[in-house]
């Protein structure tokens, strides 16, 4: 990794905790050359228009992701409903053919509140930690979390209403998520209760899907309502401590989206569909520090940008595997 990418890596960790991305102070000569070449290049503009006219918008990754998300949650439901015992429990904690799996944030809450860790809890948490280090941290959010899917649909409604000028997106300070994470951790330690678990829409939804609906769904509805009429994807963007926990895991994960400066027309379609557009600051004209820039840990690896990019400048990558091939 070049010194510039290392600096960017650190910056992206700050962005994960809520800092706003900044203009890079230094850009590598190779990237500078491309930035320079793109300025006022008529061929490039013609090429851009051509690509625009022929772009085929695919939903490949979205469809795969939705299928995975629905399958994972359905497996929980069916395991109980049909008593096939493949994936027993809920998203907070479960057993996959007997192996303990425990959600990292729920485990953290329980450890902080109860202050006593039994072996099964440790084993389950360790297994899940390894799993999501391998698969990309916040990959959990977009590929497994049932609230994410509902919020994605709510976002579609929000965007439709916004287009009709009936609502406007009221954005907020992203540092709030870090503040929430700290508050809920402190509350767990101080009160001895897993306070966040009482309002976690992920836990509530997962249990509702498996054990049947309850009044707790009203809280989930309230969140969705807030997101449709007031603030786009507010819970996932500004509040959810689970996202931050998995984001931290994603710092060291090899699975990520990689950006290639060469073919990018800097039209920003990717930033429009992205849940966390601050991780895509590098696609803005003149910002990329290298020819290839990996996207930071707050990225949920949802692949919407990969689907929408007309030039294939954004793609999934497993760090190290390209070298092997």
């Amino acid at each position, binding site marked *: 990794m070049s010194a510039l990418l290392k600096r960017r890596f650190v910056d992206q960790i700050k962005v994960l905790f809520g800092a706003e991305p900044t203009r890079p102070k230094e850009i590598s000569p190779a990237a500078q050359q491309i930035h320079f070449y793109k300025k006022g290049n008529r061929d490039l503009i013609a090429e851009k228009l051509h690509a625009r006219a022929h772009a085929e918008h695919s939903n490949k990754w979205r469809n795969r992701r939705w299928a995975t998300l629905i399958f994972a949650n359905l497996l929980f439901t069916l395991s109980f409903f049909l008593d096939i015992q493949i994936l027993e429990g809920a998203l907070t904690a479960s057993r996959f053919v007997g192996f303990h799996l425990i959600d990292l944030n729920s485990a953290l809450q329980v450890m902080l509140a109860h202050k006593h860790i039994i072996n099964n809890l440790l084993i389950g948490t360790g297994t899940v930690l390894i799993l999501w280090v391998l698969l990309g941290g916040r990959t959990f959010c977009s590929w497994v979390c049932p609230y994410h899917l509902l919020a994605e649909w709510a976002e579609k409604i929000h965007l439709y209403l916004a287009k009709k000028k009936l609502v406007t997106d009221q954005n907020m300070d992203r540092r709030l998520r870090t503040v*929430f994470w700290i508050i809920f951790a402190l509350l767990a330690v101080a009160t*001895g209760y*897993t306070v966040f678990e009482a309002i976690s829409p992920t836990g509530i939804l997962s249990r509702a899907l498996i054990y049947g609906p309850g009044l707790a769904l009203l809280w989930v509805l309230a969140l969705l309502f807030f997101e449709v009429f007031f603030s786009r994807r507010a819970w996932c963007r500004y509040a959810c401590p689970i996202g931050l926990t998995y984001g931290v895991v994603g710092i060291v994960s090899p699975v990520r989206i990689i950006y290639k400066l060469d073919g990018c027309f*800097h039209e920003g379609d990717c930033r429009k569909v992205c849940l966390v557009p601050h991780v895509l600051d590098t696609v803005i004209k003149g910002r990329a520090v290298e020819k290839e820039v990996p996207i930071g840990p707050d990225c949920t690896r949802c692949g919407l940008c990969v689907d929408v990019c007309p030039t294939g400048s954004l793609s999934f990558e497993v760090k190290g595997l390209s070298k092997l091939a």
Partner: protein
Amino acid sequence: MSEDESLRKKASDTTPPVSISKRQTNRRRVLRTVLLTGGVLGAALSGFLPLVYAQKKRLRPPGALDEKDFLGSCIKCGQCVQVCPVSAIKLADLIDGMGVGTPYIDPRAQACDFSCDAVQCILACPTGSLTYHKPDFLPVRPGAALAAKPILIAKENDPEPTLNMHERIGVARLTRPEACLAIQGKGFKGQTRGPDFKGQLRYMTVDRWKPVKVSSHPYDVAECDLCVRECPVKGAISIETVFAPDGSQRKSPVVHEPCVGCGVCEMVCPVEPTAITIEAGEVWKL
């Protein structure tokens, strides 16, 4: 706004002082952020209210830690729900506040009859909320500990006849003696709890392994002793001759120390409302 414009705007707002409209926007954003903070924290902290106002304690599954430790350690996954053969365990809803998603037993609707033979809910628990062995730093309340491991009548003749339980989850008490059929010297004939009752119970005479509906097992007893005859734990309850204040002799169910609080007596009690109830989290008092 195209990317170019936004870029230019970003670049320009770093040098000159922030414009009035931008400052206003920023202030509104801070306000909104504070609003969301308040909303989410308010919702989270309102979870404490039911704990403060709780009228009646929940009966927790076997092996449960004391209520506060239980709420702090339960990860709300419902694995205990999934292993229970009689579906005695249910998950609490929003009205339980901080206890949302935690397991409880409503013994009148479906008691824990130990038809799993081995308190499987404890085995299923991933966090030790339900536990065979309480960690050393958690004290055992006086009277909560069982004098001996409870002997399950169903497997009394097995090499290992006991349940791996060290503390009771509650204690049965004859809360409405005036309604008790035994005390009145009455018998009982028919389906206890009526034909529509969905509760299940393991009847050793019907099937050693499979619990059946209570409604499928009608009774005909000259003197009601349903709570005693269906109690799954050896020596936990018996019909005794007691003396009433006026000196007259009566029969009455009497609860003994081995009672673990499973609730089968409450479930099968034929009078409405039940004459015998489980006091959740209660300890044995002499």
